[in-house]
């Protein structure tokens, strides 16, 4: 208790001491320059008093005033304000709302920290994938923005509900992103997307990604009034749904609706509230996101593995786009649209389809019309692994082209977004070929299952599921479902 000052005394006198001190100065006219001593002394208090003068006025000892004043000054001191100077001068001037503190814009809470702790990539693989450009700086949103700029009136999505051009899609995505910001679904937080209405689910997903959220696609029927096991496990901030009648609706997680405040001393709160009322400075959430937009290393998706509600796999924009790139290279460049006529299959099928479509920038048709001479038809079906492993796989089938070549299949799972492909699955002797960038090794002493690793592979399960050590090996290897050694690509 320095100088006999308790916390209660400090709080009681802090405001008046701050007001009377040199911290707040009001000068009326120019009495000193006019040598008007009388007026000057009348105005002394407004211009700021010494600690001894304040003590005399308020009935405390001078050292007590000094102590309280120094503590108040420190507690009010916003330590991040000087960072505004990093963005000013050289022709740039201060404007309200223009400053975004990176520490605040990029701050994450414990739930996000938990999600990001799953990004346990092998350092050597990170260096390799960046060097060989398997991982680029692009995000799914960058691709969307590019298409909106290059072909604003081009059709992006079509189904029986309607159509959206790239520009319309981009506008809708921005709107959803802004609204998510208003819902306090901050950067890095998980949000779930109801995939029931496919046409509307895509803008919702992209809006969430633009807002910096991690998307948990819900591919099973959901109870509208409660969170599913997967949503609870992921600690989603909100669930997004959409329909023709209601383009966006939010279901807020009850946990996230609880507000937590760091208790500040009352006088500090009062002073800051007065400051906020006086000052016209505003920083909106949307401005914050624009200043520090989503990057390739950010989490993009949480995907159900093995259909289990609580086994979720984390994917970044890096891994998703890397996995999709190898597949996209197999698509016929002449085809002007992608047709996807069935459900998305597993969430990994949805995520990969999204990435494929955005890479190509063609029309995505979700209705039943199909003309294989002009469109690439993709279907995704779930099947059990050949090897007896319970890793669930998805096979994406690309329709035959004009010359009647057999369909192409791509093998993927939530853990491995694109590992192998084969032509003519029903042809005799059909075999799996590794996609570009994917490596393979045989397990020691076991020639019945095989390990793969590649740039589209996840680093692990959220929360370190018990299965993790069985599936995810060291140095990025993933124990897979193949029961025959894949061949290397040409």
């Amino acid at each position, binding site marked *: 208790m320095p100088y006999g000052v308790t916390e209660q005394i400090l709080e009681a006198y802090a405001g008046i001491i701050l007001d009377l001190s040199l911290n707040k100065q009001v000068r009326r006219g120019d009495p000193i320059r006019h040598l008007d*001593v009388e007026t000057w002394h009348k105005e002394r208090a407004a211009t700021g008093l*010494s*600690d001894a003068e304040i003590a005399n006025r308020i009935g405390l000892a001078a050292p007590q005033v000094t102590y309280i*004043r120094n503590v108040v000054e420190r507690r009010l001191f916003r330590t991040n*304000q000087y960072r505004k100077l*990093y963005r000013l001068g050289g022709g740039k001037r*201060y404007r309200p709302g223009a400053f975004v503190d990176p520490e605040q814009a990029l701050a994450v809470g414990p739930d996000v920290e938990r999600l990001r702790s799953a990004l346990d990539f092998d350092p050597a693989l990170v260096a390799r994938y960046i060097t060989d450009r398997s991982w680029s700086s692009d995000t799914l949103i960058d691709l969307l923005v590019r298409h909106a700029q290059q072909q604003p009136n081009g059709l992006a999505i079509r189904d029986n509900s309607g159509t959206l051009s790239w520009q319309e899609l981009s506008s809708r995505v921005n709107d959803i992103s802004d609204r998510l910001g208003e819902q306090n679904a901050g950067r890095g937080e998980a949000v779930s997307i109801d995939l029931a209405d496919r046409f509307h689910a895509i803008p919702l997903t992209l809006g969430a990604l633009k807002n910096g959220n991690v998307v948990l696609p819900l591919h099973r029927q959901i109870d509208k009034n409660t969170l599913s096991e997967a949503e609870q496990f992921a600690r989603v901030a909100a669930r997004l749904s959409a329909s023709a009648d209601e383009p966006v609706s939010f279901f807020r997680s009850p946990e996230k609706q609880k507000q937590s405040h760091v208790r500040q001393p009352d006088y500090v709160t009062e002073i800051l509230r007065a400051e906020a009322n006086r000052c016209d400075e505003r920083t909106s959430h949307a401005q914050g996101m624009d200043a520090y937009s989503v990057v390739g290393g950010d989490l993009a998706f949480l995907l159900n593995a093995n259909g289990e509600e609580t086994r979720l796999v984390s994917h970044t924009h890096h891994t998703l786009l890397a996995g999709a790139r190898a597949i996209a290279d197999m698509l016929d460049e002449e085809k002007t649209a992608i047709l996807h006529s069935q459900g998305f299959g597993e969430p990994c099928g949805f995520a990969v389809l999204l990435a494929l479509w955005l890479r190509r920038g063609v029309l995505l048709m979700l209705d039943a019309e199909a003309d294989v001479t002009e469109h690439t038809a993709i279907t995704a079906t779930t099947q059990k692994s050949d090897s007896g492993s319970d890793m669930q796989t998805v096979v994406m089938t690309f329709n035959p082209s004009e010359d009647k070549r057999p369909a192409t299949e791509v093998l993927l799972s939530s853990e491995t977004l694109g590992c192998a492909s084969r032509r003519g699955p029903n042809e005799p002797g059909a075999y799996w070929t590794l996609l570009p960038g994917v490596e393979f090794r045989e397990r020691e002493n076991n020639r019945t299952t095989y390990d793969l690793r590649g740039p589209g592979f996840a680093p692990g399960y959220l929360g370190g599921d018990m299965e993790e050590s069985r599936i995810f090996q060291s140095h990025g290897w993933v124990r897979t479902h193949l029961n025959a050694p894949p061949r290397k690509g040409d």
Partner: protein
Amino acid sequence: MGHTATIDFDSARNELRTYAHSRGAAAVGFAEVDLVEKFCPPGHGPRDLLPRAKTVISIGVTGPTQGTWRTPAKVMTSIGTNVSRIYRVALGLAFRIEDTYGYRSIYCPPHVDPELGARHPMQSLKLHAELAGTGARSMAGDIMLHPEFGMLYYGSVFTEMPLSGDEPMKDNPCPAPSCVELYKQIGRTPCMTNCPVQCLSGSIDEDGNIEEMRFDMYRCAELCQQYENMPTLIERAIKSDNDLEREELLYGGESQSFFYKATAGVDTNAQCFECMRVCPIATQAPQADPVRRGAVKRAQTNSEIE
């Protein structure tokens, strides 16, 4: 005691003024301590430092180069100040007075009062400047401005030598006509508009004079007194239960630059110049920077030749 028996004090004033100019002062003014003491708060007058002081000499040295005003703010935090030049002038003047005239003199420390903390100076150099006529208080938190030299950095010398005082400035260069015009249009001057922490406000009367100047110094300190951050960073590091956060607080780029400035002795007293950057007096006074002063000197030389 030790001083020269017969001194022509008027000549001495001129000689000391000339000496200060030769050492780098742009503005030099004198104020009688009796007058200064009328305006000082108790305990913070010249006689609290030099008990028999008779005269305060206020010295102003010029601000940064013209090019400096064009640089980003974070560059100005390193090169914007010229405080060290004051020391050379003021210290030299104090020695000069004692050496030449035999009167006790001190260079007034422009520092904070060690008993009271970082926001309480020992003396008000602004008061000395205003009474000695080397500057006038501006709308920008009472930063002192000079009609000829713009923004100056101030130092003071206290001496027991009795010298007659100068008059305060007759007119205040602030607000400039353009600032009055802007105020009439939007109710704010350029300095008020461009302060990054919005610490400035006030009003101008119908005659174009400062009616009221309001300065929230505790907000300005957030930009100008970054060293006040350091104990807070250390406290947070001690209290943090997160290793990465502690590493950022202690070893991150900003923390490193604080320690660098502290150990390398880089001027840190004025780290924000945004109100002055947009001030027409600070940046466009006839001899505000070396470009302008050089042009004035050349013009004078040419006219002398002619």
